[in-house]
């Protein structure tokens, strides 16, 4: 299956050459968000909020073909 991944804010540093429209990735069916994180170069345990097709999902969420995954870091300043 093919999905696109967009990394936001400080998460962009792990894939600095990613295009603005998102990284296109071919993945085995049944891949969870959690399983994908090391492949994106994200460090273990990095705090993030995951959105699939603009909707919040947990890291155990199973991705399907044509999903648009967006990963955000926590933003807590004020």
């Amino acid at each position, binding site marked *: 299956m093919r999905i696109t991944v967009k990394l*936001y*804010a*400080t998460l962009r540093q792990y894939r600095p050459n990613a295009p*603005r429209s998102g990284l296109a990735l071919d993945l085995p069916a049944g891949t969870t968000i959690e399983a994908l994180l090391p492949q994106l170069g994200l460090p273990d345990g990095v*705090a993030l*909020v995951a*959105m699939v097709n*603009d*909707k*919040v999902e*947990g890291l155990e969420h199973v991705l399907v073909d044509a999903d648009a995954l*967006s990963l*955000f*870091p*926590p*933003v*807590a*300043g*004020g």
Partner: protein
Amino acid sequence: MTGIGTRLRTLATATQNAQGEPLALISLSAVQQLAKESAMPIRDVEVAALQERVLPARYQRNLGTIGFEGQLALLRATVGIVGAGGLGGWIIEGLARMGVGRLIVIDGDVFEENNLNRQMLATEGSLGRPKAQVARARVARVNAAVEVVAHHLRVDEAQMVELLRGADVLVDALDALPTRLELQRAARILERPLVHGAIAGYVGQVMTILPGDPGLTALYGEGHVPERGIETQWGNPAATPMLVAAWQVQEVVKLLTGRGELLRGRLLFMDTETGAMDILWV
């Protein structure tokens, strides 16, 4: 009240709005005079004026978006703002200028030098002073119709519930995550909407959370949440709190006036590094 109605109409000046329709305005000095004459708070004089369809001149540029009814709604409202720092300073300034009649401001900090790059209420002269008290003094100079109840306190959930009782809308201007979740729970207990805002470096986010909405727990879960976010790495430049605070002010105005569409169940994520804005469903 008939006495004041007559006085108001006497003191009003007749003018026209941009469409050429008649508009009765009352000046700041006339409002102040009337407040002194009748021993009424300035806010009450302004409410009486609006009820007579006389517009305090200070609100003339509000009229096009919120109208007389909206201005009355703002003057009669109470908004609780938790945090008077980067976000809170601009939010308090904006709500005072719009004419929200009562602000409950809670902040346990005093101003430090590193606040000067971005916090509206931080001046070289206010360093070391409690933020909530500086907020009250600032509002008194910007709009004396607005009453500020200032609490120089670090508060937990129970204290939030106690101090924010009576507020129509609550505003998140905090700078840590766990306490934001406490504020969301307090808002749930008080059955009041909460306007969430947060900033970090180039980015910021805004969302309006109605009681019972998942809100921040949808984003961060109910288990352990980190104390802070990427603002520890990116800091906060001047533009970011201004940007997010402006959206929060407008969410409050929409909640109080019933106009427009809320960012409810929608997280507006703004990135000034890339010039991108995203709406995400929560």
